[in-house]
């Protein structure tokens, strides 16, 4: 019963790959900071930054957190559950817009 305790080396992360992921993450961060200093509309900026952040999150999960090398089903249950529940939270927004336009004072 310890199928889980080894066998990672076979498809584990080589140091080279790890380093290149790290470099990519830094590059993306750099792009984000750069973007922040360009005059863009807040919405566009939000979309771009969140897009990049999702890519970074995906990189971290896939490589650092090893999800790429786990069984596909693990990914297919965890990530959708998280995304579905988290994105339903965005139902909040129509109300915040209402709040902005319907303030008493």
């Amino acid at each position, binding site marked *: *019963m310890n199928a889980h305790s080894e066998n990672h080396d076979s498809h584990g992360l080589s140091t080279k790959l790890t380093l290149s992921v790290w470099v990519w993450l830094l590059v993306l961060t750099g792009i984000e900071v750069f973007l922040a200093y360009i005059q863009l509309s807040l919405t566009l900026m939000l979309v771009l930054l969140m897009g990049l952040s999702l890519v970074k999150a995906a990189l971290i999960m896939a490589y650092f957190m090893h999800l790429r090398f786990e069984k596909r089903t693990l990914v297919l249950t965890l990530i959708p*559950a998280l995304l579905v529940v988290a994105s*339903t*939270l965005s*139902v909040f927004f129509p*109300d915040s817009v*209402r*709040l902005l336009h319907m303030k008493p*004072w």
Partner: protein
Amino acid sequence: MSDTSHAHQVHAAPTGFIRKYVFSLDHKIIGIQYYFLALIAVFLGMALSLIFRLRLAWPAEHWPMLAKIFPAGFEGGPMTPEFYLSMLTMHGTIMVFFVLTTAPQSGFGNYVLPIQVGAHDMAFPVLNMLSFWVTFVSMVVMVAALFVEGGAPISGWTAYAPLSALGQVAGPGQGLGQTLWIVSIAIFCLASLLGALNFITTVLNMRAKGMSLMRMPLTVWTWFTTAILALLSFPVLLAGGILLLFDRIGGTSFFIPAGLVVSDKVIQHAGGSPILWQHLFWFFGHPEVYIAILPGMGVTSQLLSTFARKPIYGYRAMVYAVFAIGLLGFFVWGHHMFLSGLSPMSALVFSMLTLTIGVPSAVKTFNWLGTLWGGKIRFTSPMLYAIGFVSLFVSGGITGIFLGQTSVDIPLHDTYFPVGHFHLIMGVAAIFGIFGGTAYWFPKMFGRMMNETLGKIHFWLTFIGVNAIFMPMHTMGIMGQPRRYAQSTEFLYLAGVQGYQVVITWAAILTAAAQLIFLVNLFWSLFKGRKASDNPWEATTLEWSIPSPPPHDNFGGKIPVVHHGPYEYGVPGAPRDFVMQADPPLKLGKA
């Protein structure tokens, strides 16, 4: 995770009293601890309900006995309205969190789930113990709120901001009591998270050989789904609770908008939104009500099948329905907020989605009836509770169909109509799940049978009683009686309501008295009950193939191999009228 023992190693049976019964790692002891915690909570909650019901029926009466215990609540003679509200708030909170989230899931789930999947314990025994003790601390903090200076909180179990956020300016009970309430809830969230990930891991990783997903008893399915709901909804309440706490003691204003003037005092907070609190609360709150009912559904399925001596009707459909209810539960929270200033478009969407929950619920109801159909029903006391569950679930569920529609909710929202709705479905259907589970698993848990006669008397009185209490509330709601009113006599249009209040209070007193029968039965049977055999109900799931009560590691070192589905009753050609899950494969002669 902080759990250091290797997960697969069976921990040896502890010997000292403390390690054995107090800080036990054994899922069975922890289950029992949870169960008794809930038992204390339910009697406390019930006592509170009787106290506040007194005021509803006889608003001007003096209660010298009570006044001695709670002098502050009876200043000037009759019960004060703020005392009414604090009793109500504590009643709702204790019942929802410490009874219905605790007994069916953490109590029975802890005790039975590992055995039913064929495991020697939960995946994380240390975490399991921690989650119980954290729950315990949470309950102590909650009960402390009853006795602190300034009184228990009065903003209802939903703690709507800004009432709950402003502190003492907003009225009595909003001081330390409210703060303790929030702290307790936040602690409770942590305990539930720990419990939930333990349940999920156990179900996924620790099933015995042959226990494929589609062979799991429906109880396991419901505990599993409930754990997923808890894992995904409690963190949101936790976030909300942290922010509310910041507002109260950190001086922030997440939920307090600008320009409030309370009793002529200008409030310095600015910029927050009360609606945000409602969103965060109900995002948790709606899944929470399914957390309360799903285990009851599982228990009911198990009992109906066992005592009708028939396989459950539509097993797969039942599994899918449970999952559908759980999933849909995340998309409907807005139905509690139709009239709160929610955007009217989202209200329409929430309304449509709410009604769709009726579909899997209909499937469940239909299959329960299908299970009874053509059976050979044994009317034991657990079975009576299960039948009661079905009846109450239907009565309470269909009133949700009124509330789920935006337009019909306009006159009914925040009246006694929803109060009737949720008491029938949660206050008693789910509670009947606990009763059924208690009567059913008691022999396994304590090695003795409960008394059938007492059980039956208790069933009859309670079943009649709760219908008498909660059915008339719908009428009061239709007449327009708002909830959380300390009395109904201030309004002319409510003239017809007072009579109902008196009848309901009497019914509540009698029903509550009938619960003493349950209590007596429980404790009497604990010590004096008839010795139980291993399988007194001739049931099929794994817990019935081991001794009553089970040994420390459940299966005495030999994990069973499962060959059959969970509900094989009345199998034609089988040697007995039931085939247990661990029975060897049947030789099937072609008929």
